[in-house]
């Protein structure tokens, strides 16, 4: 039983990272209808920037805001400079541009900071609130930060005029333009915010998977799955989806282990957990194509 709880807890902690990345993906998706395949590598790059600042001797609470600001700027610049001219380009061309960005960020990180694996300190104090060993302080921190980010973004979109303008731009660009919203800048702002959320995900996951250019490769897939399962059009759903995928993945491995211990037959282990989790996700999507919390888009013919 304790082991089960432990698995659920660590699933939730991983899920927090997937949730943040899913949130970043959704933020770009709602305003531009693009899935940013470079999101993971951008987060990885931000984590490296944060590591560099820490290495120069800045404290974490200076390094993190600086990293977030840097990521925000990079996000805005990418939208303004690289994606702006492609607004009317075919979807597949945009996908290829994202793949290009992915390659650039990946190789630049390797070129600047080399491919050796680096440890990354956990920003959370090693408080001894939890004795049972079910969940560590860093894992609790990840969950708290993920939920906190969602809360902040929710308040931003719900209660500020700028958030309202961004929602309007995403929902109906033409009408938003007519009431005087600068839609182009709203898109760039969305990119900046997404990059910021992604950078937090990168910094949080770096202590767990260690810092190296490949660290985000698998995590992006989980984030993608989380975003889709929760409903790609709904930020809250994406966060829930991220947590669901995280727990699901650990449950699959756990049940596989239980089965092997009980019957001696090896069916699923750690190697297959990703595959099985994805199969479940896709089955859910086949039955409920708009995701668990997404709303069905009705199209006029």
């Amino acid at each position, binding site marked *: 039983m304790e082991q089960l709880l432990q698995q659920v807890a660590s699933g939730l902690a991983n899920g927090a990272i997937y949730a943040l990345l899913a949130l970043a993906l959704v933020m770009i998706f709602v305003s531009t209808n693009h899935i940013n395949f470079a999101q993971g590598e951008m987060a990885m790059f931000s984590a490296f920037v944060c590591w560099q600042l820490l290495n120069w001797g800045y404290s974490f609470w200076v390094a993190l805001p600086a990293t977030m600001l840097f990521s925000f700027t990079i996000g805005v610049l990418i939208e303004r400079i690289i994606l702006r001219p492609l607004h009317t380009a075919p979807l*597949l061309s945009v996908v290829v541009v994202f793949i*290009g960005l992915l390659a650039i960020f990946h190789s630049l990180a390797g*070129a600047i900071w080399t491919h050796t694996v680096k440890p990354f300190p956990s920003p959370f104090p090693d408080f001894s609130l939890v004795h049972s060993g079910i969940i560590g302080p860093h894992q609790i921190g990840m969950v708290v930060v993920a939920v906190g980010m969602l809360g902040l973004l929710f308040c931003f979109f719900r209660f500020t005029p700028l958030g309202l303008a961004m929602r309007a731009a995403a929902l109906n660009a033409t009408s938003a333009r007519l009431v005087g919203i600068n839609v182009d800048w709203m898109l760039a702002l969305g990119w900046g915010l997404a990059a910021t959320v992604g950078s937090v995900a990168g910094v949080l996951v770096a202590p767990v998977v260690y810092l190296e250019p490949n660290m985000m490769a698998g995590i992006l897939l989980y984030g993608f799955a989380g975003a889709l399962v929760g409903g790609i059009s709904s930020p809250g759903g994406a966060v829930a989806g991220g947590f669901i995928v995280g727990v699901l993945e650990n449950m699959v491995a756990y049940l596989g282990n239980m089965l092997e211990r009980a019957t001696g037959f090896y069916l699923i282990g750690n190697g297959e957990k990703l*595959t099985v989790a994805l199969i479940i996700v896709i089955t859910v*999507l086949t039955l409920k194509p708009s995701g668990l919390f997404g709303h069905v888009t009705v199209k006029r013919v």
Partner: protein
Amino acid sequence: MATTMTTETSAAGDPAALPGLRRPIPKWIWLGIIFAALLPLIGGQTGLISNFYFLQLSLMIVYSIAVLGLNLLTGFNGQISLGHGAFFAVGAYVTAILIDRYEMHYLATLPLAMIACFIVGYLFGRPALRLEGHYLALATFALAIAVPQFLKYRHFEPLTHGVQGINIFNPDPPFGLPLSPDQWLYLVVLACAVVMFIVARNIVQSRMGRAMMAIRDQPLAADTMGINSARTKSITFGISALYVGLAGALHAIIFEFVSPDSFRFELSIAMLVGAVIGGIATLSGAVIGGFFVQFIEKYADALTKWITSTVHLPIHLEPWTIYGIVLIVLMYTMPMGIAGGLASLWRKIRPPG
């Protein structure tokens, strides 16, 4: 989603690109094929072209077949796939297992690999029908991740040899032909490619091809016209997988080795990039795409070395940076791929009339 797919793929805006009109294959293409087939005799015997170069050419042709297969699905039918490396792996493994375990003749394994991939593709395409756009991207993404895992799966190990992979041997040219194995395989691959391209051309120009494109451009209208879109889409998936599977099988024979890690996710991405860069929904684009997949890394590497030797940079530049920049620049200058870009250039400069 459906609307964005439409705008991107309707390169068929001008009537000349409409494949409905049956035109004979131009003579210069046949001349080119004959020249390519004579290369082992001209270049190989005189020693102008090394065996290694023939190996690279073979690989380029293999990737062209794979890109063509993906193009049939993504370009002509509008279904995106991030996981065609999976079918490549299935084709390669079917061939390798048949040669390794059942000692079959390597040429006889090709049709079996194709059939196996058609079935896998059809069965995958059937439930994937409900998925569109990004959802299909995720499903195929998952497929690309899942297949190498399956190849390593413990209960299949007697057949697949797990992580170690399977070694097979390069066949010798038959009838005592005065060719090296590399040159002979180059001819085999070339022959396969010619057949597959002609078949693809016929598919695209047939009733099936028109149905594929109708579904891509206007799914609702296609349904109304009586096209069975479920059937067409899953058959297209199967055909596409068949092409990629053949490419995988040939790759296994050329490389003499298969292992789960030769079919990582990067392969699927490289194929998609090749299809888009070459020119989506064009047959000639597949050849350019194959060339791109095979040679870009080499040229990016060379370019990186040249840049680092001429300009002093504070960091050690990596080839992938150049690769990324090349992708972005190409998409800026030629959003319809290189084949599309060349075609529109030709329309501007051709003699009037």
